[in-house]
């Protein structure tokens, strides 16, 4: 395929922090997203994981245009989205929709489910009014809700049901890409599974692409074809799901994966965990070189061997050779100066 369906290049989002006085200049800049690049094909789902504050939600919001990007480009079907105004956006709203995190806050409490679902159709002038009602019924049916509840209000539904309404609203415009911003993190675990299965079924049925933001690795593993790991506004590793979960390359990814508890107590007791020391550094004042080096177990253990590169040079996200014959075909990108060594020499952990 010549042009990727969604192409994000060097996306940056900077928030000014702490204005001095009424008209003063901002005291500091918070680089929430700092040079994120990735592509997404039609029908594919890409997961973005990371700790809170790593910029994954900001990335999602920049893509749907809720936070205008500071710099960089976002292209959907080859069309640049960052320079569009509201009117210019309208046709792309139909291709690009969003599911929100909080099922309690994302539905207007004063509107019925029917009008919530009909609103996108009305704004875009799709269908005749009579057909709109039939479509809202079909939407409710498609997300597993009883169509008889069309005249009910959001507060009359449970959290999981509300999230289904949010999904139905995103489906109403028949989008090709849905950005899901932590769609299940506010739900009970049992409900999470239902919603994730629904999302997978919808993807199979309609062939939608998903950009899936989550902090729960198990959730991402369940839904996504490819996974990107973010740390302090940058992507540190981007690989197919199996490659990432089986042979993580970046020390941060390794630490993240080792934080998943195992259900088997024997295996849990035997396995070695990589426990990161300290907190995530402030994005107002990120460390020099590789942002991860102050907490990197590989850097801590092999400081002499690895030298000054980690503290001096910013590692770019680049293809890494894979020794695994199974996942050897799959694309993998790592942002670590020593990615090959980390794997080959078992530098860490």
């Amino acid at each position, binding site marked *: 395929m010549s042009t990727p369906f969604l192409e994000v290049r060097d996306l940056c989002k900077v928030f000014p922090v702490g204005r001095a006085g*009424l008209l003063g200049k901002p005291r500091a800049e918070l680089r929430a997203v700092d040079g994120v690049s990735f592509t997404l094909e039609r029908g594919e789902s890409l997961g973005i994981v990371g700790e809170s504050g790593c910029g994954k939600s900001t990335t999602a919001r920049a893509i749907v245009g809720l936070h205008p990007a500071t710099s960089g480009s976002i292209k959907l079907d080859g069309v640049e989205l960052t320079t569009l105004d509201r009117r210019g956006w309208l046709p792309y709203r139909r291709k690009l929709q969003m599911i929100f995190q909080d099922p309690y806050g994302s*539905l207007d409490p004063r509107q019925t489910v029917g009008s919530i679902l009909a609103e996108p159709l009305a704004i875009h002038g799709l269908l005749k009014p009579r057909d709109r009602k039939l479509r809202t019924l079909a939407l409710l049916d*498609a997300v597993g809700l009883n169509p008889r509840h069309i*005249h009910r209000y959001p*507060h009359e539904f449970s959290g999981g049901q509300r999230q289904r309404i949010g999904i139905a609203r995103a489906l109403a415009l028949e989008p090709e890409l849905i950005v899901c911003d932590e769609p299940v993190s506010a739900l009970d675990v049992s409900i999470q599974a239902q919603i994730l299965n629904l999302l997978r079924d919808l993807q199979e049925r309609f062939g939608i692409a998903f950009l899936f933001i989550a902090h729960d690795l198990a959730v991402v593993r369940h839904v996504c074809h490819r996974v990107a790991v973010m740390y302090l506004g940058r992507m540190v590793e981007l690989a197919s799901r199996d490659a990432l979960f089986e042979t993580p390359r970046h020390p941060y990814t390794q630490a993240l994966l080792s934080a998943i508890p195992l259900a088997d107590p024997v295996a849990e007791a035997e396995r070695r965990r990589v426990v990161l020391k300290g907190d995530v550094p402030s994005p107002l004042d990120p460390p020099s070189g590789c942002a991860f080096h102050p907490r990197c177990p590989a850097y801590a253990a092999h400081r002499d061997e690895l030298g000054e590169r980690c503290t001096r040079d910013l590692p770019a996200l680049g293809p890494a050779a894979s020794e695994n014959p199974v996942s050897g075909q799959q694309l993998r990108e790592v942002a670590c100066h020593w990615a090959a060594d980390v794997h080959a020499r078992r530098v860490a952990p």
Partner: protein
Amino acid sequence: MSKARWTWKTEGLERFLSGDELIKGESLWQDAWRRLKLNRGAYWSLMFLALVASISLLAPLFPLPSPMALDLQDEPQAPVMPWDSFGAHGFDEATKNHFIDSWEPNFVDRALIAVRTGIFGDWQTGHWLGTDSKGRDIASRIVWGSRVSILVALSATLCSLIIGVTYGAFSGYMGGRIDNAMMRFVDVLYSVPFIFVVIFFVTILNEYRHELADAGIGYIHVFYVVIGMIYWLTMARVVRGQVLSLKNSEFIEAARVIGASTPRILFVHLVPNVLSVVIVYLTLTIPAIMLFEAFLSFLGLGVEPPKVSWGLLAVDSTEAINPIKTFWWLIAWPAAAMGSTLLALNILGDGLRDALDPKLRGR
């Protein structure tokens, strides 16, 4: 990978189009109304206010004496029981014309007076609540005065509503420096003592009352607007705070993602969600404005005779009080009318706040 393919299963769903099989939802307004009805105090306050409002609205229909018919005696006459003095044939053509000429009622009220004379002829009730020092019937003056008091309260509240909601919603939605500047302006106005501002305005307007009258604007209308312009400050703050907390909520973001325009977001999503707080605040503003009107009339800055308001009635009664004899009915009846209305408004406002509070839902 392949392009998205959209097909919707609609078979079996057509039967829901008629609406017979649909489950009815309960909106937050219906829910609030249901809970307001459960609150006995608030419910009866609402009923009482509806009664006061209809008496006030239908005042010309009642066979009351003219509120300005003088009956000069040495001193105010005490209330008489209906069985002692049921009424008299006093509302004759001359009294009626005198009343119409000095009160200048509008055509609806003239029609209602015509209906009244059609039903009751020239008959009018006795002085069941007593008379004031000039022999005017207290009951009639309370009923006719309620019109002025309620009208001042409603129009000033409406004025504060329009200015406050527009100003506050705009300030909150724009945010940033515009919000900052607009709210500092409100802070500055807050620090100015209201009473001096009103006295200042009213005094100046008194100078130009003839010019205003030529332009078709009565002094009283200006008075309403001046009070409204004082009371919008808190409303602006309340609305701005609400908009500020709502504009970053996810349902507003969701509306932007589906492509809603700014006016649509403001009027379809933001304003209906702010409305419940605004209504509660309004029911608490009305009594404050009524009291303020009474206070201004008391100072001689408000409603002017021959018109009468509850505030003016209080002035008249204090003038009639002397150490030798207390004419209790002069004070008791207007105070009771005003006090019960204010109490009912406060109870209703309190009940509305509870009923509209989503945290209390289901109780």
